[in-house]
Structures are given as C-alpha cells and as structure tokens.
C-alpha cells in the first residue's frame, strides 16, 4: 500500500512539475526576450550586412518582415503566443524555422551532455565512494588530488590538451566532428565511429563534474559513516561490505543526486565551449554563432529549449531522489 501511496505521490509530483514547467517557460521566455532585446545592434542592419551593401529599402522590408517595427510589447505578445504553440519563430539569418534549426542540433548536444553527465555521475560517485571508504589512505589522497586537479582545469583547455596528445601527437582519435562524413559504414561501424569521435569531447566535458561528484560522494560517505544507524548495523554484527552496500551507499547518494540536478544547467553551458573546440554539430555551437549574429529568434529559442532541458533534468533527478528517499514521496520530514 505504501507502493501505491508513493506512486500516487510521484504522479502528483509529475503534475506539479508540469504546471511549474509551463509557468517557468513563460517567465523565461519573457526574461530572455527582454534580455536579448536590451542588446544594441539592429538585426535588420546585420542581415542587410549579410547580403552586401544594404540600402534603406531592404532594411525597411526586413524590419517589416520580422515585426521589428512593432512596439516591444506587441513583439513580446507575439513571442509568448508563439512559444506556447511551440513555434519558436523564424530565423532570418538562417532563413529557416528556429525549431527546425534547434531540433537538428539537439540530438548531438543531448548525446554529448547526457553521456558526459552519466559518465561523470557513475565514475565520480564510484571513485568518491572508494575514496570515502578508504578515507586517509593513499588511494584516498590520490583520488582527492586527481579530483582537485580536474576541478581546477578549464574545460576548453583540457579539450585542447587532449587534442594535442591524442590527435596531434599520437593520432589515435579524430580531433573534431561528430562522425566520419560520407564514410558509407554499416550501422554498427557507424556507432563505433561516432563513439570514437565522442571520447574526447565527453571526457573533457565530464571531467569537472566527475571531480565535483567524486568529492561530494567522498564527504557524503564519510558523513554517513559517522551516523548512528551505522553503529546499529555494526552492533547487529553485520560485516563491513554488507554495511557499505546495505546501509551507506543509498544514504550517501542523496546529496549527490540533489547537486547533480543543480549542475545540469552548468553542464549544458559547458557544452558550448566544448562544441566549439571539437566542432561538434550541436546546440552549443549554434548558440555562440547566434549570439555573434544577434539572431534573436534563434537565441530565444535556444535559451528556451536549454532551460526546458534543465528543468526536465531537475525533474528527473527529483524523481530519482524520491525513489531513493521515501521521506520525499510521503512529504514527511
């Protein structure tokens, strides 16, 4: 019956989140809009620039075409209406619907970020747990130093160094791109091909978070180790490993999961740099170009999508959190 209760609770939580999502989307949409429109630089100008020596007529056409001649409030109104109908507008620079632009880049970014996220979480927590259990030992110090170093390394620089070593010097891994273009591979070969291209971007993106989670897990394990119920377990006569697996890990994971959720945004942000370094055909790169081009619709779209991704990731971690910790599902404590 508890099962049922928690299921219901999770259901409710899901609805709660759905409502949140919409609310947040609207606010963020407005927020982004204001932010971007605060920028100097007339989009029509730029576009005109794109198409060679602009002249007043073309500028006018463009302003009309993209409603830039409307008052901001009107523009905002239309923007919000569109957002809710998932029409993210039309990019005059790319001359395509923003949603298409984003959608065709999204998979690459998701692949990159999610892989990095999982890698960081798995390896990070494992290392952290090992270090925490062996607190004070050589292994512990080793892990600690390692994670400290990773934690201090600029993402992009790590990427460059990897390229320097594994592509330039050793020539083991492809320095850029998402897959070997036009290679005419079998599906399996293709998977491996992509995997090969992924190694360096993923590693450099994951590094810092790996460090964070490792450090977090370590301290968390140490904290749990000092709690009364561990003493109980020992008083019960449980063997070391049993105590670790049966009583420590789950409890130690709780704070890590929480933080992991909060890190989602940062991770997506890191992707921008990494995608630039590795010419990864994802949203990150698109973002950067869009900013330089002042491609308002694209920018707004990307910000929205990224924010949604972050919220969804938060939701995911929240659910995981609920699964790990029964106190959440019944709203007690």
């Amino acid at each position, binding site marked *: 019956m508890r099962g049922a209760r928690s299921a219901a609770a999770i259901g409710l939580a899901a609805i709660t989140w759905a409502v949140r999502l919409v609310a*947040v989307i609207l606010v963020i949409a407005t927020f982004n809009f204001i932010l971007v429109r605060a*920028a100097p630089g007339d989009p029509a100008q730029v576009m005109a620039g794109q198409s060679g020596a602009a002249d007043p007529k073309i500028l006018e056409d463009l302003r009309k075409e993209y409603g830039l001649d409307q008052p901001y409030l009107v523009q905002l109104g239309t923007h919000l209406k569109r957002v809710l109908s998932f029409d993210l507008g039309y990019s005059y620079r790319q001359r395509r619907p923003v949603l298409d632009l984003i959608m065709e880049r999204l998979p690459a970014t998701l692949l990159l970020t999610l892989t990095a996220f999982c890698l960081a979480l798995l390896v990070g927590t494992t290392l952290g747990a090992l270090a925490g259990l062996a607190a004070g030992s050589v292994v512990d110090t080793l892990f600690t130093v390692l994670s400290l170093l990773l934690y201090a390394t600029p993402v992009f620089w790590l990427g460059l160094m990897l390229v320097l070593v594994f592509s330039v010097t050793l020539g083991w891994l492809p320095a850029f791109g998402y897959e070997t273009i036009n290679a005419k591979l079998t599906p399996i070969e293709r998977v491996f091909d992509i995997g090969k291209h992924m190694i360096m971007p993923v590693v450099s993106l994951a590094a810092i978070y790996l460090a964070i989670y490792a450090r977090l897990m370590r301290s968390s394990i140490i904290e749990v180790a000092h709690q009364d119920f561990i003493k109980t377990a020992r008083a019960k006569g449980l063997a070391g490993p049993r105590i670790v697996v049966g009583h420590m890990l789950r409890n130690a994971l709780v704070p890590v999961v929480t933080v992991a959720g909060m890190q989602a945004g940062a991770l997506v942000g890191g992707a921008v740099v990494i995608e630039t*370094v590795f010419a990864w055909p994802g949203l990150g790169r698109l973002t950067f170009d869009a900013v330089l081009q002042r491609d308002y619709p694209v920018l707004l779209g990307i910000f929205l999508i990224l924010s949604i991704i*972050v919220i969804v990731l938060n939701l995911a971690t929240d659910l995981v959190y609920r699964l790990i910790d029964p106190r959440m599902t019944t709203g007690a404590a």
Partner: protein
Amino acid sequence: MDAVRAFLRHPSGMAGLVLLLAVVALALLAPVLFPVSPWEMVGAPFTPPGEDGMWLGGDTLGRDVAAGVAHGARVSLVIGIASAFAAMVIGVVIGAISGYFGGAVDLVLMRVTELFQTVPAFILAILLVATFSPTLTTIILTLGAVSWPPLARLTRAEFLRLRKREFVEAALCQGEGTARIVLGHILPNAISPILVVTSLTVATAILLESALSFMGLGDPNQMSWGFMIGAGRTVIRNAWWMSVFPGVAILLTVLAINLFGEGLSDVLNPRVSRRRA
C-alpha cells in the same frame, strides 16, 4: 584567532595559500619583471620557449608569452575577486531579505533566483557580455550577475536557520531592533560560510572569464590567460607553448583558490564544507 592557528595546521589549505600568494606576487611584480607591455612584439612570431630571451616562447605576433602570463595574472585575479565580491553583495542582500522576512518576499526572490539558476550560467554570461560589449567592467558585472544565486541560497538558508535560534529570539525579547539583530547577531554568525563560498566563487569566476575570452568575448585591451589560450588554440599544432602555459597558470590559480577556500571552510565551518559543490 584559533581559526588562524587551525588554518596554519591545515596542510592543503596552507599549500593553497602559499600557491595563491605566489600568484598574487606574480601579479604585483608583473610590471617589474616584465616592464615592456605584454602586447609589445619583442621577438619573432612563433619563437619556441627559451629562444631569444623568451623562456616561455613568443606568440603569433612575437609577443613574450611569459610577460603575458605574468600580466594575465593581474586580470584574472582582478576579475575573479571583483566579480565574486559583486556576486557576494547581490547574493547576501537578496538572501538576507529573503531569509529574514520570508513569506511572499521570500517566495518571489527565490523564484527569481531559481530562474537565474535555470538559464545556464555560461550561456547567460556570453549573452550579457556580447550584449554590452566586453570591457573589464561589463565582464565583472556579468560574472557577478551569473554567480550570485548559490550565495543567495546559502545566505537565505543561514538566515532561516539563525532567525529561529534562541539567541536571536532572546535579542528580540530584549527589545533590540531588526537592523541591530540582523547586523549584530545574524550576519556575524552567518558570515563564515558565506566567505567560504565567495572565495570558491572567485575560482569559478576566473574559469568563466577564461572561457569567455577563449571564445573571443574578453576585453581586447586586457592580456588575459583565456585570451592567450584562445589565440594560441589555432596554432596548437605548430606552437603548443602558446596555449599550454596560460592553461597551467589558470589551473594552478584555480587550484590554489580551491585549496585555500576548502581549508578555510574546514576551519570555519565543517557544516558547509560538507555541503559544498
């Protein structure tokens, strides 16, 4: 005072402090060690390390990488510290108001904070800097603007915790005014975790700045480490030294600050030091 003594006994903390002092010294002595502007093209482009008087080599225009690293230290530290301070001010004010008064104010402020946390900080930073054209000030303000939420949340938590503490309520019963209670009782007891997190914010700020200038969004008049790496990136195949050395500089500085900050946190308040990340 015991805190100081305790810190002196904190090995990694001390290591960080020493390293940090070294970087600070480098920053301060830069004009002495390298009197010539780091922008001056003193040698031939692509001079490898050690040759014609440039022990860290020359860059694509024949500028001394060593001079760049030294002068870059100033920029990185200034930006790091200033923006962290900005973040602290914003964060503490918002967090304090939110935590002390609670209720609707709290609700609104926290939603705003969440909002800022939802938009990926770095992308927001790119946008802001690109929007208001990169200068030292805009970069500092931007980094401050994207780094405050954690500080606000921390301050809020601390205030919530302390506001309910008996000694605060006692002060209330003793007839002390809000201002006195906040400044005299709550803040002093909340400050140490805030300082710790701020010190760590310095590190993240430095990393963010380097990432920005790496992507060409730095102040073009400041020789910064990120800029150097960005400039050296394209030539990494022909001239590794241009991107390696500044990178090492960033790594060491950030490492130093983190070690220092963690030492501080272990000494001042184990509670926060466990929660941080």
